[in-house]
C-alpha cells in the first residue's frame, strides 16, 4: 500500500509542477510526463509487491477528525489499476506533441494538472475502502475529467459536450450516493464490509440505484449519451485516457458492489447480460452509422463496454448457478478485455487524434489515402482495428474467446441460464462481425484509397512523441495476441480475492492459453511462409503499375470512390427499428432536373427518447414553477427560514 502512496505523490507532483512552470512550456511538459511516468512505474512495482504479498494491503487515517478515509488493495483493484498505470504514461507521452497551441501555455499546464489529477483519482477510486473515500474519489474523478473535456472552452461544441457530461456524471453520482445512503440507513456504518448483511430486497435497491450511476460512467446503453458528445469535443489524448481507462471505473464500480453485496440472486447477472448485449450490439450499429471519426470510436467504446459486461454477466451467472468454470472464465474474460480495450482503444484514439491534428477533418467521407502520407499512424491504426474487431492473432480475440468459453459452459444448463448463454454467444458473434465491418470501413475510407479532399491530401506524419506512443501500443496488442498465456494467468490472478469464487484453481485453465498462443503463432508462421513464397514467385516477373480498373470507365476521380456512408448503409438499415435513419432527398422532378441533394443521418434512439420522455416533461414542469423566482430578496430569506424550520420540525 505504501508504494501506491509514493506513486500517488509522484502523480500529484506531476499535477502541480506544470502549473508552476507553465512559462517554460517544454519544461512543464517534460516534468508532467516524467513525474507521471515515475508515478505509474512505482505503481506497477506496488502492484507487483502486493501480488507477491510483500506489503500490507490495508491503510486508513482519520480526516477532519470526523471521517475515516480507509484504503485497501485487493486483486480487483489491482486488475483495474494495471491498465491505469500502463496506459497513462503512454498517453501523456502522446500528449507531449499533441498539445501544441501557440500562446496557450497556461491552458496546457492546466490540462496537465487535471490529467494527473484524473490518474490520481482513478487510483483512489480503485483502492477506496469505505463510502466516504469512494464518494470523494469518485467526485474528484468526475470533476477532473470534466475540466479535461473543456480544454477548448471557448468553442460552443465543447461547452455543450462538457455540460452534458457534467450533467450525466453528476446525476450518476447522485444515484450512487443514494445507493450508499440506503446502505447507511440500514447498517449505520460507512464501512463497505457491512453491505453483505443487508436484507435481500435492500440489496436489490442498492444494486439498481448504483447501476444507474456506474452505468452512466461506463457508457452502458441507454445511459451512454454523453460519450459520443464528449469524445469529439475533448482533445484526443483525453479521449484516449477517458475511453481507454476512465469509463472502466464504471465497470469496476459494478463489480466492486457485486462482490460487496455478495448475493447469488440470478437477477443481477440477467440485468447485466441484457445491458451488455444491448450496449454491445447497438453500440456497434450506431458506430457503423456515424461518420465523425471520434464519435464513431466513442460508440465503439460503448460496444466494448457491452462485451465486458457480457463477460461479467456470464461470470455472475456462473456464480449464481454454481458453475465455477463459467464464473471464472466469464470474469477473467471481462477483466482481460478491460486491459485489451484500454490498449487498442487508446491506440485508435491516438490515431484519430493524429489524423485530426494533421488534416483538421473529422468527417470520414472527406478523408482517404492517408496510409501513404502518414505511414506510422496508418499501420498502427490498422493493427488497432484488427484488434478491436476481435480477430486473431491480436489481443481482442483472446478475451472474447474466454467469454465465449464461459458462455458455452452455460449451454448445458436448463431454462433461463441456457437462454442467456445462447443470447450472449449470438450477440458476441454479431458484434464481432459488425465490428470488423465497421473497422474495414474506417481503415478503408480514411487510410486506403485516394484522398477525397485537398486538405486530406496535404497531411504529413505526426510528431515524434505521438508516433512513439502508437508504436508502443500496437506491438503490445500483437504481443498479448501471440503470447496470451501470461496475460490470461494475470486475468485469473485478478480473480484471486473474489469472495464467491473463494480460491482460484489454475488447473481449470488446462492447456487453453497454450493452445490459443499456438494457433496465433501458427497463423503468423503460415503468413510469413506465404509472404516469402509470394516473394519468390514474383522474382523476375514483370511488375507494372497503372490506374485502377474502372470497369470500362476511364475518367474516374477520387470522388467516385465508395463512401463510408454508403458502405455502412445496408447494415444500418437492417437494424432499422432500433436505429433511426433520417433521409433527406429532394428528388428529381422535372425533365431537365436542377441540382438535387441527398443526405442521411443516423439518430440515437436513446438520445431522442431521453429528450422526448424526460427532458421535455421536466422542462414543462419546471416552467410551471417559475413563479417561485420573483426577485424579492425578503421572500427568498423567508424560504430559507421556512425550510430550516421544517427541517428542525421533521428531524
Amino acid at each position, binding site marked *: 500500500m505504501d508504494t501506491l502512496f509514493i506513486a500517488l505523490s509522484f502523480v500529484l507532483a506531476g499535477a502541480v509542477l506544470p502549473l508552476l512552470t507553465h512559462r517554460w512550456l517544454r519544461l512543464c511538459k517534460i516534468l508532467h510526463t516524467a513525474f507521471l511516468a515515475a508515478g505509474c512505474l512505482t505503481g506497477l512495482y506496488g502492484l507487483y509487491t502486493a501480488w507477491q504479498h510483500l506489503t500490507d494491503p490495508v491503510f486508513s487515517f482519520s480526516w477532519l477528525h470526523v471521517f475515516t478515509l480507509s484504503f485497501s488493495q485487493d486483486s480487483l483493484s489491482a486488475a483495474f489499476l494495471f491498465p491505469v498505470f500502463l496506459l497513462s504514461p503512454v498517453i501523456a507521452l502522446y500528449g507531449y506533441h499533441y498539445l501544441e497551441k501557440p500562446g496557450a501555455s497556461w491552458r496546457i499546464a492546466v490540462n496537465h494538472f487535471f490529467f494527473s489529477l484524473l490518474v490520481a483519482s482513478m487510483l483512489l477510486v480503485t483502492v477506496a475502502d469505505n463510502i466516504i473515500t469512494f464518494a470523494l474519489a469518485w467526485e474528484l474523478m468526475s470533476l477532473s475529467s470534466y475540466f479535461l473535456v473543456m480544454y477548448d472552452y471557448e468553442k460552443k461544441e465543447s461547452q455543450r459536450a462538457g455540460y452534458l457530461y457534467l450533467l450525466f456524471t453528476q446525476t450518476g453520482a447522485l444515484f450512487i450516493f443514494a445507493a450508499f445512503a440506503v446502505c447507511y440507513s440500514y447498517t449505520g456504518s460507512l464501512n463497505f464490509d457491512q453491505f453483505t448483511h443487508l436484507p435481500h430486497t435492500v440489496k436489490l435497491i442498492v444494486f439498481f440505484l448504483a447501476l444507474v450511476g456506474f452505468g452512466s460512467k461506463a457508457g452502458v446503453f441507454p445511459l451512454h449519451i454523453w460519450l459520443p458528445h464528449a469524445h469529439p469535443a475533448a482533445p484526443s489524448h483525453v479521449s484516449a485516457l477517458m475511453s481507454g481507462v476512465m469509463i472502466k471505473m464504471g465497470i469496476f464500480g459494478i463489480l466492486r458492489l457485486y462482490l460487496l453485496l455478495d448475493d447469488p440472486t440470478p437477477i443481477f447477472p440477467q440485468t447485466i447480460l441484457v445491458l451488455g448485449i444491448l450496449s454491445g450490439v447497438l453500440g456497434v450499429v450506431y458506430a457503423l452509422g456515424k461518420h465523425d471519426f471520434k464519435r464513431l470510436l466513442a460508440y465503439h467504446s460503448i460496444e466494448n463496454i457491452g462485451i465486458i459486461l457480457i463477460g461479467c454477466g456470464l461470470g455472475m451467472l456462473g456464480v449464481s448457478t454454481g458453475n465455477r468454470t463459467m464464473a471464472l472464465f466469464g470474469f477473467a474474460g471481462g477483466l482481460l478485455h478491460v486491459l485489451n480495450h484500454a490498449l487498442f482503444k487508446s491506440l485508435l484514439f491516438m490515431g484519430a487524434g493524429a489524423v485530426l491534428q494533421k488534416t483538421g477533418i473529422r468527417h470520414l467521407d472527406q478523408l*482517404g489515402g492517408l*496510409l501513404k502520407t502518414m505511414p506510422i499512424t496508418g499501420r498502427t491504426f*490498422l493493427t488497432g482495428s484488427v484488434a478491436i*474487431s*476481435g*480477430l*486473431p492473432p491480436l489481443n481482442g480475440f483472446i478475451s472474447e*474467446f474466454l467469454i*465465449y*468459453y464461459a458462455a*458455452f459452459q452455460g*449451454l*448445458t444448463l*436448463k431454462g433461463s441460464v*441456457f437462454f442467456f448463454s*445462447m443470447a450472449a*454467444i*449470438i450477440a458476441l*458473434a*454479431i458484434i*464481432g*462481425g*459488425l465490428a*470488423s*465491418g465497421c*473497422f*474495414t470501413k474506417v*481503415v*478503408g475510407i480514411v487510410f*486506403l*484509397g*485516394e484522398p477525397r479532399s485537398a486538405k486530406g491530401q496535404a497531411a504529413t506524419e505526426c510528431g515524434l512523441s505521438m508516433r512513439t506512443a502508437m508504436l508502443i501500443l500496437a506491438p503490445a496488442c500483437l504481443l498479448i495476441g501471440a503470447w496470451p498465456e501470461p496475460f490470461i494467468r494475470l486475468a485469473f490472478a485478478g480473480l484471486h480475492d473474489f469472495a464467491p469464487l473463494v480460491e482460484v484453481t489454475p488447473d481449470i485453465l488446462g*492447456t*487453453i492459453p497454450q*493452445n490459443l498462443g*499456438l*494457433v496465433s503463432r501458427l*497463423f503468423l508462421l*503460415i*503468413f510469413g511462409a*506465404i509472404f516469402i513464397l*509470394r516473394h519468390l514467385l*514474383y522474382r523476375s*516477373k514483370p*511488375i*507494372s*503499375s497503372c490506374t*485502377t*480498373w*474502372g*470497369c470500362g470507365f476511364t475518367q474516374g476521380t*477520387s470522388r467516385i*470512390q*465508395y463512401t463510408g456512408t*454508403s*458502405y*455502412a*448503409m445496408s*447494415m444500418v438499415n*437492417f437494424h432499422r427499428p432500433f436505429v433511426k435513419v433520417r433521409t433527406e432527398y429532394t428528388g428529381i422532378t422535372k425533365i431537365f432536373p436542377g441540382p438535387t441533394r441527398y443526405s442521411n443521418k443516423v439518430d440515437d434512439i436513446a438520445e431522442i427518447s431521453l429528450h422526448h420522455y424526460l427532458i421535455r416533461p421536466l422542462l414543462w414542469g419546471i416552467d410551471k414553477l417559475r413563479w417561485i423566482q420573483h426577485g424579492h430578496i425578503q421572500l427568498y430569506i423567508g424560504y430559507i427560514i421556512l425550510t430550516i424550520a421544517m427541517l428542525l420540525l421533521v428531524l
Partner: protein
Amino acid sequence: MESIISLGIALIIAPLFPGIILKIKALFAGKKGPPLLIKYYTLAKLLRKGSVYSTSTSFVFILGPIISFAAALMPLLFFPFAGIPPVLSFHGDVIILFYILGIGRFFTIAAALDTASPFEGMGAAREAFFSTLAEATIFVVLILFYRLNGSLSLAEYFSGTPLISLGGGQGALMLLVIVALFMILLTENSRVPVDDPATHLELTMIHEVMILDHSGPDLALIELGAFYKLFFYAAFIACLIKPLSLANPVANSLLFYGLIFVVYLAIGITESITARLKMDLIPKFILTSFALVFFAIILTLELV
C-alpha cells in the same frame, strides 16, 4: 503421419472440385464444358504471370491475398478428413477457426477498398454485411453441436459420442443443420443464388468484384484460398451426411470424398437451376438458415 498425408491429399485435390461444378453446369446447358482439371491450368497460368498494381494501392493490397490464403488454409489443419485425426486439434478450436476466416475477410475487404474503385467498395460493403449474418448462423450451429455432444472442436464433433451426423442419434436435427450449412456454404463462397461468379456485370457481383484488380500470383493465391474455403465447408457437410464409418481407411476415404463430390454436385445443380437473388433478398436467405438451426435448438430443449 497419417494426418499429414490426408491433409496433403486434401490440399492437392481441392482445386479439382470446382471444375466438377463447371462440368455439371455445362451438362445442364447442353455444352461440353471445360476440362475437369481446368482450375489447375488456371492456377499454373496465373503463377507464371507478372502483376499490374494500381497506383492507388498500398501494402494492404498485397497483404489481402496473403492473409486470406493463410486464413483459408488454417481450418484444413484442424479438419478430420475421413475420420483421420487432424494435424492439430483442441477443445475450442472451432471458435478460433471461424474468427481466422474472419481476419481473411477483413483483409480481402481492406484490399478491395484500397483500390479506390467504386465497384470494389460496393462488393466490399455487401461482403461485410452478408458475412456478419452468416456468422450468426454458424455460431448457432456451434451452440447446437455443443448441446448435442458437449464438444467444441472439429475433430470432437465427428468422433465424440453421440456422433454428430445423419447416422448419429439426432439424425433428424441434422437434416435441418445440413440444409442451413449448405445455404451458408453458398453465401460464404459466393455461389448462386447469393452471388454469381460467372456474370459479366460487375455491379451485381460480390466476391468477384472485390478482386478485380488482383492479377498474377496474387490472384492465384486468392483463387486457391477460395477453393480451400469451399472445400472446408463441403467437407464439413460431407461429415454430417456420412452415415457410417468404414473399418478400412481407404474405403472410408473413398466414401468421404464421394460424399464431398455429392455436395459439389448439389452446388452445381443449384447453380444450374436457380437464378441469383435480388440483393435485398439475400439477408432473408441467410436468416432462413439461421431460423432453421434455431428451430433445431428449440427441438433439443427437452433433451438435456
